[in-house]
């Protein structure tokens, strides 16, 4: 899986298509967030990055989140999930969703019903710009000028993932710290959304505000 946020136009086709996945029927597991709505139309598509050492699975008290032999981190096992939401708050990417009434966590499982049969995941099959692509490394990478990277650094923590992010630069990893993203004017961003972005809040972004499905 390859994600290129530069190509994302915020159409949310992936969000709609994700609901068609048979393993979490009717519920979308993808987020498309505006990164700074007052300044840019740029959007960030976020789906599970399928960490090689998944924090969500390790903080699960019920041992409900399993990684399969293909390295895909699955949704919580239904008989085990206790709806504690540790995974929701521990995931460095903000990915897992929960439903309290169902006592259940669900997340992107790379459309395992499709990918296990050689089909593309729903999101990759509908993305009009190739922001989300699915294929073999040797097939996708030669077609792009961007660099595939599957490592993030969150503070002191190095996180390797099965999913690649396409970088417009020669970096070997994405550092989510030390570039002013936590501080500065962005601090007031979400506070101001109620007035500045009321139309988009009510129409598009409601599902992205909460991780409850």
């Amino acid at each position, binding site marked *: 899986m390859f994600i290129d*946020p*530069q190509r994302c136009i915020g159409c949310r086709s992936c969000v709609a298509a994700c609901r068609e*996945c*048979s*393993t*979490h029927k009717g519920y979308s597991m993808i*987020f498309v*967030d505006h*990164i*700074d709505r007052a300044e840019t139309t740029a*959007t*960030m598509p*976020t789906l599970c990055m399928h960490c090689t*050492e998944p924090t969500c699975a390790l*903080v*699960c*008290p*019920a*041992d409900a989140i399993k990684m399969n032999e293909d390295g895909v981190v*699955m949704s919580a096992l*239904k008989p*085990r999930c*206790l*709806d504690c*939401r*540790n995974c*929701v*708050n*521990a*995931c460095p*990417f*903000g*990915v897992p969703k929960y439903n309290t*009434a*169902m*006592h259940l966590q669900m997340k992107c499982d790379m459309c*395992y019903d499709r990918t296990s*049969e050689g089909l593309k995941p729903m999101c990759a099959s509908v993305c009009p710009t190739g922001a989300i692509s699915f294929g073999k490394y040797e097939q996708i990478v030669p077609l792009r000028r961007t660099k595939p990277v599957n490592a*993030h*650094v*969150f*503070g*002191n*923590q190095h996180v390797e993932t099965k999913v690649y*992010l396409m970088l*417009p630069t020669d*970096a070997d990893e*994405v*550092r*989510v*710290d030390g*570039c*002013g*993203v*936590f501080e*500065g004017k*962005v601090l007031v*961003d*979400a506070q101001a959304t109620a007035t500045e972005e009321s139309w988009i809040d009510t129409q598009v972004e409601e599902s992205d505000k909460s*991780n409850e499905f």
Partner: protein
Amino acid sequence: MAIAAQKYHPVKVSYAHPTLIGIVASAVLTALVIVGSRNLEHFDSALFGYTIASVVAFGAIAFRYAIWLQRPATRTYFRRGLQLFFQRKKFAANAGNAATTAATNLVAQRFIFKRGTMRWLMHFLIMWGCIIAAAITFPLVFGWVHFELEGDLGYRAYLFGFPLSVMQGRDVFAWIVFHGLDFSAVMVIAGCAIAIHRRLKDRGAIALQSFLLDFTPHLLLIAISVSGLMLTASSLWFAGYMYSFVALVHQATVIMTLFFLPFGKLFHIVQRPASIGVELYQKRSQEMPQAVCPRCRTEFAGQMWIDDLKKVVGDLGFDYRMENGNTLQDYCPRCKRIVRGLSYANLPQAQEKVFVGGRADEK
């Protein structure tokens, strides 16, 4: 700026303590069997195989439970849950909450109903079928309950050797009691049939299931139930034809299922009651000061919960501490996604930014 990238290192599991717990659990059950059957006076030696399997399985479940409690997150919830439950001022309220949660989650299973009506029906039939069967068979196997003839048709039940009321052998109540295992078998077969039908038809289930974890428990339960019904049929209608062979098959399937309990899907039977503790933890956490996301200033979880989570994450060998002194888990999930987007946007593309106009430019 060079950051020492820290790799996750798994927590070591100790087997010594769980092994001891397992042995003690088996020993306690053995002692209860001896005491409860009045020094084996009421113990039916024909059921010796079942007893041995039960004792071993009980020890294995205790062993597995102790291993499970070693997970940093489980240990934290377990300790904090007990600590919150036994708070002197809140004890009555906690006991009330736990009773309500047990009624809605474990008895009525409302959360499974929300997941799907047929799923609820399937689980209801299997669970109550198994509970009824267990409630009848285990006390009989362990010699805790036995019957003695009183008069011509009266049966007096004895619990741990103490006499209970007399039951008339020919009335409706007795018929229901004596056929309790047959009713439970029908419930289990119906529930397992629904489960297997779903697993054969549902595309999502087909993609995720495995034979050992998802089909084996159902097949074992069906085998127990069918062989149990065959015992009734053999004695009622076929004059005991092949009774001993069917009894042996029944015993073999029961023992296999008992040994399967600590593994896979069936372990949720002993694991699920932990949801009472988790719900209590979350309820108390909501009443305490809330964690405020440092970026968007929204309250998103209880501070106690986030503090516990950060400790668990640290115990697991992760280090998500940021330059600004916060930990990544201090931020709400949405802000985590946005800061990653902003970090990506701030990557240089040749000489220019990827997204022109990002606010971080102005810093």
